[in-house]
């Protein structure tokens, strides 16, 4: 949907300091750009639940972290998300790969449940489903930040 360089430029514009991530094959192509951006720290986790808690600690310490995972990781990390966003009340933002969204009639249950799960959590999200929507992401991030509420950008993908 956008290149790593476009993403890094957007994150710099937004003041993001840390990307905590466990990528899939679609967002994984941003790795080189993210790890070579001098103003960003890339934190690799072993499982997605870790990402929410690390981001919470960074936020408490005054930084501006961004969580970046796949939708399967969203499902897996539900308890950590619940705790950080709702018990601790920390308004984190996440970029989440939306596996199989672009495949018409996909039987992938990861596609089927992604948006219902975000709605169940009451999370404000935006869908990025075609090239050139970096501004949509930036604007949504800013709106969530200004309102001090958590947010998600779903990045539409093909197969895993």
């Amino acid at each position, binding site marked *: 949907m956008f290149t790593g360089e476009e993403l890094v430029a957007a994150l710099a514009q937004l003041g993001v300091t840390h990307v905590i991530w466990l990528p899939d094959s679609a967002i994984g192509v941003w790795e080189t750009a993210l790890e070579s951006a001098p103003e960003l720290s890339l934190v690799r986790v072993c499982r997605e639940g*870790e990402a929410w*808690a*690390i981001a919470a*600690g*960074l936020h*408490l310490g*005054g*930084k501006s972290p961004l969580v970046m995972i796949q939708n399967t990781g969203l499902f897996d990390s539900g308890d950590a998300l619940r*705790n950080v966003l709702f018990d*601790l009340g920390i308004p984190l933002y996440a970029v989440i790969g939306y596996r199989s969204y672009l495949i018409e009639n996909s039987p992938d249950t990861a596609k089927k449940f992604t948006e219902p799960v975000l709605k169940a959590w009451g999370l404000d999200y935006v869908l990025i489903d075609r090239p050139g929507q970096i501004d949509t992401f930036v604007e949504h991030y800013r709106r969530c930040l200004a309102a001090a509420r958590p947010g998600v950008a779903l990045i539409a993908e093909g197969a895993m």
Partner: protein
Amino acid sequence: MPPMELLAALRVVADTRRDEIVVTTMGSAREWPKLSRHPLDFHYLPSAMGQSPMLALGMALAMPERRVISFTGDGSLLMNLGCLVTIAAAGPRNLTVIALVNRLYEVTGGQKTAAATSAHVDFAAIAAASGIAAAHSFDDLEAWRAAWPAIRDAVGPTFVALQVAPVGPAYQLVVPGPMRTRIEAFRHALRR
């Protein structure tokens, strides 16, 4: 050798506390307030079980000028052993994780962890094999007391496993007030 009493094991850290951030959860969140009322205590309650060291890692990365001590239980650690690899990869020089090992889920009534049935589960060895070079294990209070100052001041990340006795029927976990209020107080303490 009988395991250490939890409160005595924690007192070793409390007695030599300077200005470290101390993150507690589960059993340590219940016992630590008996020893400390420091503004940089962060009681991670309610928590997501297994994520306390990750919260502490985030703090350590955000504030490299401060030392961060994270207490966790072995039941919690077992839920997220990968966190040790994550910590080793991030390499925070200012983070110490102290696992309180009693081989029980005391928070749910004292059921055994999967590790309780094996004498071979060695958390310090797991930490070392995960890439945390400074990994220690203690089952003797005096040895722990003697070693702690050097461990605390060492370049991290560091890991300590303490073999502690269950608290037993006295175990009662009380959430110490609204999280929002506690976070505001913690942030205020950080700004001072």
